[in-house]
């Protein structure tokens, strides 16, 4: 796991715990089934996209936990996707100061849902700067950070102090 992937993992774990009371387990992997994907673009000292994919079964508990709903309280489809987009937004917003510098200013764009098969790839076919998979009781979460700049632009120590 490179420093960027450690940063992604640390920020995602902290966000899931604080925002939705979800706690990743040690062993990720396996067939995740149907996935939904959101992307969050950003520009500034680093530019790129954070791709966040979740097992479809995770959307209900995610939204219910964020809203503090009691068992049996109904959720709308809009709330499920809104909660998922917000999860992606919070992870991205918290990740950028870690992989860049705390004083850098970024513009974080509105999270967008992505149709199956339309997930963006890194420019020039490069590998993502980091990709991580987390498994929870509620489902799995996959994250990939694509950077428009060259991989060398990522601070080597990024994330080590997260």
């Amino acid at each position, binding site marked *: 796991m490179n420093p960027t992937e450690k940063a992604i993992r640390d920020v995602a774990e902290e966000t899931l715990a*604080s925002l939705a009371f979800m706690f990743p387990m040690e062993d990720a992997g396996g067939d995740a089934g149907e996935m939904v994907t959101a992307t969050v673009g950003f520009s500034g000292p680093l530019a790129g996209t954070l791709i966040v994919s979740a097992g479809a079964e995770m959307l209900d508990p995610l939204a219910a936990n964020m*809203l503090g709903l009691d068992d049996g309280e109904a959720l709308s489809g809009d709330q499920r996707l809104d*909660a998922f987009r917000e999860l992606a937004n919070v992870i991205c917003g918290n990740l950028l100061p870690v992989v860049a510098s705390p004083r850098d200013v970024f513009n974080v764009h*509105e999270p967008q849902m992505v149709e199956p098969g339309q997930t963006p790839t890194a420019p020039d076919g490069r590998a993502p700067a980091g990709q991580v998979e987390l498994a929870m009781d509620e489902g799995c979460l996959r994250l990939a950070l694509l950077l428009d700049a060259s991989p060398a632009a990522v601070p080597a120590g990024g994330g080590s102090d997260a």
Partner: protein
Amino acid sequence: MAINVLIVDDSAVVRAMILKTLRASGLDVGEAHQAANGRAGIDQLSQHWVDVAFVDINMPVMNGEEMIDQVRANPVWADLPIIVVSTEGSETRIERLQEKGARFVHKPFSPEAVRDVLGEMLGVMHESD
């Protein structure tokens, strides 16, 4: 005394979370107005008396910083207590917002963080403290 609030965030789920947090903290919430971007937030301020505004930063149409600039430039709202609730992690931007008189609560937020900042801003004391 009931406090009228304005919550500006492009996520309806986050708006609901903030409102639920305020009510759970024991604050006597009067009217709760909501808007999905800074422009709509300004419109809400034009129509309703608000005691405190919770404002996100990254929003479409008009972001939170632009909204705060417009609020501070208007003599009627210039002293409105504003609490920024955002994922913003840039020390540079946070300092800039604080210079504009806004307080900051970082997402993901705890109910205690919102309650404490609000209490400091409004001098609201809670029996649970």
